[in-house]
């Protein structure tokens, strides 16, 4: 319906129009789905190292991720987003990938901290140099560790990304 342009419609934003008097909004389902997803990101509780402490801090009173609708879930089956908070050692990598595989689509990965982004200071035999070697990453949040504000910024970037997606839902339902 995107091509149809009726002059009496008021264009609210890209793809969403309002018919005055008819009490109705026209828009692709995409928008609604993306809005729902962006507004309710449930990350999996998975702290690996130092960054996990800042992640907990971001969820605590002062910064309160719950404001964005972000609620930590313990089970990967109910998670939407995997925050890789900390160093991914080689022993951990298969486990991490497994947690990622257990998550239902659409799933997002947020690499938090230098270690998850690139291995950080730990260029040793036991550390994976960046989590993007084993799973696709949506947002990188650098820092060692990133401040909670930086994590929030990362989540906002993720929301922006989700809002721009196209029909990410069609394949699974």
């Amino acid at each position: 319906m995107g091509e149809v342009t009726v002059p009496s419609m008021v264009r609210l934003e890209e793809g969403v129009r309002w018919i005055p008097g008819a009490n109705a909004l026209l828009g692709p389902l995409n928008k609604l789905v993306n809005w729902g997803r962006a507004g309710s990101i449930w990350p999996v509780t998975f702290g690996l190292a130092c960054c996990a402490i800042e992640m907990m801090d971001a969820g605590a009173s002062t910064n309160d991720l719950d404001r964005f609708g972000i609620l930590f879930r313990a089970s990967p089956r109910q998670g939407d987003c995997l925050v890789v908070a900390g160093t991914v050692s080689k022993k951990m990598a298969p486990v991490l990938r497994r947690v990622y595989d257990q998550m239902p689509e659409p799933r997002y990965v947020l690499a938090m901290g230098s270690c998850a982004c690139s291995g950080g200071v730990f260029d040793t035999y036991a550390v994976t140099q960046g989590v993007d070697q084993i799973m696709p990453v949506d947002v990188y949040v650098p820092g060692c560790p990133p401040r909670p504000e930086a994590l929030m910024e990362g989540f906002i970037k993720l929301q922006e990304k989700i809002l721009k997606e196209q029909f990410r839902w069609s394949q699974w339902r």
Partner: protein
Amino acid sequence: MSVPSRKILEVPVADGENERYSLRMGPQHPATHGVLRVDLDLDGETIMRCTPQVGYLHRGFEKLAENRTYAQALILTDRLDYIGAMANNVGYCVAVERLLGISVPMRAKYIRTIAAEMSRLSSHLLWLATHALDVGAMTVFLYCFREREILLDLFEELCGARLTYSYPRIGGVRQDVTSRFVDELGRFIDIFPSRIEEYETLIDTNRIWLKRTVGVGKLSGAEALALGITGACLRGSGVDYDLRKHQPYDAYDQVDFEVPLGSDGDVYARYRCRMEEMHQSIRIIRQCLDQLPPGPIIGPDAPDLIMANRAPARMAAGSNRYGGGLIQLIRDQDLFPSGDIYVATEVPKGELGFYFISEGSNRPYRMHIRSPSFMHISALAVVARGGLIADLIANIGSLDVVLGESDR
């Protein structure tokens, strides 16, 4: 996706001898404080055998430190026990200073003591938060983080970082305290005791909390000692072992404080010990703030951040018997003494020991970290045996482990 035909469920049913039910808890589990894995053999919910598995955060610290200078390896210690990173920094610096024979000015010692005790407070707050959350009291978690945030702001005022400080230097500290820091810290330690009371009203008189903690995870003093448990867990069992008293470092011999001791050695005793320690930390900080001496913050013989390996080659007038005309090249002199040393400090978790071997160069030949959490996790097998799953969770919380330090 093709759905395979129905399979028989793999949930075991009691079958004579073979009644054990094995459960792998972690590494991704909300109560394992990071990436601890615990393999359990269960009979119903009773734990028959508990095998902790670590190493999921092994980063090769000791190997890495051998490839770095002493000054560079300091930043690694931040990432050991990232909850009380300052205490690790201080412990590391104390050890290296003793190894290399570097003196520290008095003011730096006091500042370090303050910083280490703040670190203890922030670590104990996080411990209380997660321990309470594990037992199910979620509000305590957020209340603790509220105060921890003030502490982190103070750390930021002190050194600009929230979690990984690298603030102490070998031979002193990086920068002096500001007057604002001193004022704010004074204000914080004034209000903090009332906040501790707040947590205690939430949990300490709560019958459910008492039922969950009293008599759970008992360890006698001798057992705890044999298992290598240190810190508040050992003191909860009644053994008076606190390195701040036993082998004082920094300004701990200048201040007056008590070492709280428990007697029962259960989860509740450890909890009480740590709560009391928070009061004692406040006492130490207050004394240090009052006595803070003026003076330099870094010693004269402290090494440069870029630690030279050897003394620069220099020319010296030769003093041979053929006259003073000849010039001699002096090189290849070790700047540092060689030998080995074990220095332990009392970090929030327990005894953090550094065993160094120096070969005279600017890099440690070998650095071994004796981490308290490693020992505590190994003790989990003994502590949790015979309890229920819920007790295991309470025990993990009360042993206060941090995997970064355990796995190194």
